[in-house]
């Protein structure tokens, strides 16, 4: 119990350190790799918080596919950021973040303690889901039972969102390549 809490605290503090490093990196490749590490530590964190399904999704999708997408995009983009000095805008952003963060931390005293069995979140629905997944659906993994059966429409909507995003990415990048080929064809014709 105590070891669990200490491991949690260590991992989440490690995430904080990585995030602080991300703020100041200027080489984009470092930013991307640190973001990947951040996702991976988050996945470890999910394992220690008993969310195994979320953990392997985060490790494969958040740390894997995201990083690959970032690296693929980086091949078209400048590899280094422009040097920025600490100016008025940064002070404005910092004060807003400190204000909101302070309010949130103040509000955290009203949140229920982590891991308490009597928290309001655990009082409704969940026992029904666990019983139902055992007796009605027959899948031992409760998360899968909820995802595919009780909340099946949510998952269906999710596929529509992903389809739309994929379509938008395709349209954005397809236009670009088409124009390029058109230009190069025109250039060749004019040369002849």
């Amino acid at each position, binding site marked *: 119990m105590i070891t669990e809490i200490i491991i949690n605290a260590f991992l989440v503090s490690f995430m*904080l350190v990585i995030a602080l490093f991300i*703020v100041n990196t200027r080489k*984009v490749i470092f930013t991307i790799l640190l973001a990947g590490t951040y996702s991976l530590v988050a996945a470890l964190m999910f394992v220690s918080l008993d969310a195994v399904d979320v953990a392997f999704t985060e490790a494969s999708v958040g740390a894997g*596919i995201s990083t690959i997408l970032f690296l693929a995009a980086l091949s078209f983009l400048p590899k280094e950021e422009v040097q920025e000095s600490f100016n008025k805008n940064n002070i404005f952003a910092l004060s*807003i973040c400190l204000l909101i963060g302070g309010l949130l931390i103040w509000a955290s005293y009203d949140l229920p303690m982590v891991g308490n069995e009597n928290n309001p979140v655990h009082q409704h629905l969940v026992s029904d889901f666990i019983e139902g997944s055992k007796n009605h659906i027959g899948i031992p993994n409760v998360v899968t039972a909820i*995802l595919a059966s009780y909340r099946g429409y949510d998952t269906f909507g999710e596929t529509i969102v992903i389809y739309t995003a994929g379509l938008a990415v395709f349209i954005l*990048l397809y236009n670009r390549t088409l124009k390029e080929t058109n230009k190069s064809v025109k250039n060749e014709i004019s040369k002849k």
Partner: protein
Amino acid sequence: MINEIFGVWNYWIVFTLMMIGLYIVISKKSLLKKVVGLAIFQTSVFLLYITFGKIAGGTAPIITNNSEEIYSNPLPHVLILTAIVVGVATTALGLALIVRINKAYGSINEDEISAVDLVDYHEKFSEKKNK
């Protein structure tokens, strides 16, 4: 005592992570860095939800033969599972937009992009005046 400190420690760090993400999104000029900031913000919100679902001494919500077993709350896990996948879709869309912007403007720095826009606007304006 140690329970009381660590009971809110997760929340504090998660809120700090959110604010770091927000700070990157507001203050950094590079569009790619902004997308990374959004990803940090997103993952910290995931952590907050999963933290709510934790029960001390519980196990992962996979049903065992032991009827006395305590399971952690599976409902936040399902929500976050959906959110992670949608998050990657939005990241991909953002990156595609950035690549397209870089193609059109030759830069992904906010200041340089607005400078290019300003020059274009003035050129158009002076053309109209000359006519």
